[in-house]
């Protein structure tokens, strides 16, 4: 069964064709990241406008790369939750239009379930990953920090999530405090080269035995450290404006950037890795999967590989399936289609998205 997947939940416009849930025939992403770098973050309306013009060329490219036409497709799948509603609607409406005009079945997919499913994707010439259930997945990105448990392809449960900032957000904001670029994860990873990860003792918030995360205090702690290197601001105080401009602090030349970046990164990685391992132990899971853009972090991968026992299968998707993409949506949709879980023209987009199959056993 060949499924065309469409994903527009945030800043990407993506389309892909996937066979039988796992074999990726094409995976096209019209990344707007160059545009966003100018603005220092994702800009929702900019995203939605860009997506409207990108959606048809991206779908056409995905079909062409898979060497098929729309008539060779068996079903159309789209992300309809969670995400920015304006962005989601671009994909949902396009997918509905394709489904209606071709008479093909239509499947709506939860973005988070798609990210987890990315672990099963492979190209035709690559071996299929062997990932024994139960599976724990650590989903980490700019907007997500979640621990999910899957006992089968049909049973998802959300075990833990951030109570304040997402891990990717902690990287982005830490990067800005250090005067580095966007996205923050890769910028901090670069700046940390040669730095001592033990130079600064940043907090590792474990929240007791909970599977939840908290990263807000870490940002504050970094601020406290860089504060020691801050030069006094003798610029005249701005008066009159309702919102005085935030002036970037000026640091002394001896700001230990590499040590700060390495220590900050180590604190995030340690909390993610240790909590994921504790979840594996508590649930008796046989596989530990990574997903989301932060899964590309080299130190996170190394740390998890180091501490996972040998009988646990550790796996993460290739980078092109870690960040937002449509192959994961088309792949996940296949399992829904096999259970007859189709949507129709009344399917809507939702900003929040509870895991569809949580605790339904």
């Amino acid at each position, binding site marked *: 069964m060949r499924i065309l997947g469409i994903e527009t939940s945030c800043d990407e416009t993506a389309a892909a064709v996937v066979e039988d849930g796992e074999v990726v025939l094409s995976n096209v992403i019209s990344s707007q990241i160059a545009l966003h770098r100018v603005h220092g973050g994702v800009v929702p309306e900019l995203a939605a406008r860009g997506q409207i013009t990108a959606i048809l060329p991206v779908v056409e490219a995905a079909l062409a790369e898979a060497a098929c036409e729309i008539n060779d497709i068996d079903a159309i799948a789209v992300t309809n939750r969670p995400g920015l509603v304006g962005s989601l609607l671009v994909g949902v409406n396009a997918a509905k239009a394709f489904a209606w005009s071709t008479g093909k079945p239509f499947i709506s997919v939860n973005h988070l379930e798609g990210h987890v499913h990315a672990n099963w994707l492979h190209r035709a010439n690559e071996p299929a990953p062997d990932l024994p259930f139960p599976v724990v997945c650590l989903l980490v990105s700019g907007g997500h920090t979640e621990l999910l448990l899957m006992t089968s392809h049909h049973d998802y449960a959300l075990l833990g*999530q951030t109570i*304040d900032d997402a891990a990717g957000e902690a990287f982005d904001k830490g990067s800005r405090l250090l005067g580095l670029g966007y996205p923050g994860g890769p910028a901090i990873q670069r700046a940390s080269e040669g730095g001592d990860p033990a130079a600064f003792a940043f907090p590792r918030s474990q929240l007791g035995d909970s599977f939840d995360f908290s990263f807000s205090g870490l*940002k504050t702690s970094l601020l406290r450290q860089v504060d020691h290197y801050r030069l006094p601001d003798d610029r005249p105080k701005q008066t009159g404006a309702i*919102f005085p401009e935030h002036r970037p602090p000026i640091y002394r030349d001896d700001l230990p950037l590499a040590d700060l970046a390495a220590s900050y990164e180590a604190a995030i990685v340690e909390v993610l890795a240790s909590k994921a391992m504790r979840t594996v132990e508590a649930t008796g899971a046989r596989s530990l999967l990574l997903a989301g853009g932060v899964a590309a972090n080299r130190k996170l991968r190394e740390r998890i590989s180091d501490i996972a026992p040998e009988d646990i299968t550790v796996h993460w998707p290739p980078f092109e399936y870690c960040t937002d993409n449509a192959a994961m949506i088309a792949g996940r949709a296949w399992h829904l289609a096999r259970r007859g879980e189709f949507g129709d023209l009344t399917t809507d987009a939702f900003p929040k998205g509870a895991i569809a199959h949580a605790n339904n056993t």
Partner: protein
Amino acid sequence: MPTELPIDSAAAMRQFGVEFAARLRPGDSVLLHGDLGAGKTTFTQGVAEGLGVQGAVQSPTFTLVREHEGREMRLYHLDLYRLDDPDELENIGYETYLDPPDGVSLIEWPERAGDWLPGAFWLIRIEHLGGDRRMLEIQRYGEDSA
């Protein structure tokens, strides 16, 4: 004239949030102005506690807005950090959050909203003085500020 309030710890910031929540009524908007790490999240957590919100107050940086159910009214928590052009606010139905009939809005990074400000609002400016020390300026703006 704004009221000035020195704050010397995260606990004091949160407690101020709890106390400030007690003076909020449905339709009120609170604009929070302060740089990264100024303590906006901590203040917001205090307000949420004061309004009786159960559970976590996840950052709205990625989603722009998060809604929370309080004891007697809702808390609409907005974060415009990622916004560049105020006109983009139209896309998220921003005007419905400016004076919500069933709750209060707390808006972080309001300077990104340009002219899209509520008719009347509380403005809380947080200035980071270094270390744990912050200076808060609290001022009421709008028709009933006199």
